[in-house]
């Protein structure tokens, strides 16, 4: 059973990372992320207008198991900055409604959270 769950988690991650177009931030429901139980991921919250985020993103651009969450921002502007940083292949989620920010208690940018949350 645990082998099946692990495989489903890996499949989910692979599905998410390959189904989005290169350089695009996809819209994902928070429930989809919360349904994951395997493989902790790092969530990096950023915005195109956040100057401090630029250095933060550059430092993490090669990080594994990382989702970059564009929040408090326009989708096209967030995608533009990822292209500018040559991060078109990064896994990006567009948090247009702010649900991810609210759930993870993000009140300033940049912010890095882990999911599932560490015990």
């Amino acid at each position: 059973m645990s082998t099946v769950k692990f495989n489903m988690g890996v499949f989910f991650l692979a599905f998410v990372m390959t189904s989005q177009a290169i350089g695009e931030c996809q819209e994902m429901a928070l429930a989809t992320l919360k349904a994951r139980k395997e493989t902790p991921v790092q969530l990096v919250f950023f915005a195109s207008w956040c100057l401090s985020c630029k250095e933060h993103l550059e430092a993490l651009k090669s990080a594994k198991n990382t989702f970059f969450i564009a929040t408090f921002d326009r989708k096209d502007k967030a995608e533009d900055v990822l292209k500018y940083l040559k991060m078109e292949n990064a896994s990006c989620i567009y948090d247009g409604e702010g649900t991810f920010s609210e759930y993870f208690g993000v009140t300033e940018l940049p912010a890095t959270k882990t999911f599932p949350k560490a015990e």
Partner: protein
Amino acid sequence: MLLAQSFDKEWLPQVQAFTSYKHSFSRSIYDSQEDWQMDVHGNGFHEVVPGIDFWYGMSSIKAGLTQTLIVPLKKKIDLADEQVTLTPGIGHKTSLTGGYNYPGKWQILAGLEKETRRNIRLGNVELKDSDKIVHSVTSTMTYAVAMRQTLGVNYKRTAAFFSNKNTTRADSYTLSYLRAF
């Protein structure tokens, strides 16, 4: 906000349009009713102030330009047993700011400001030489003392340079503490 900044386009300014309202709780020097004009504080008129602001803030070197229109509202005053309309002159202000920001630590800004106001009208009579010209200089330094907490020091001198008219030279110092919740 008309145009937001983005760190992939440092050359693009943030553009904001704004409008504010200043309510006056005192009289002007033209309708003062107390000895020594003790009831005069500020210019004594309600004002509507629309403006536009350009701010280049996406690099360590900061620069900004603000254009403001000052629209004072006229008021009726009692003059020699009759009511007369006092119409203050429209004003215009240009502010130029520049400075340096050390990310996450401190910032220093300096600015030049020019404000002009047209002549005041008393009824149908324009009061000659009641117009105003003020050139000011300002300087602000802010320091991040802790996360989301900033200490600031500001200095402003009005009538600081060039020729000025119908104004006073004044120095003001302000100490501020800002905390973001």
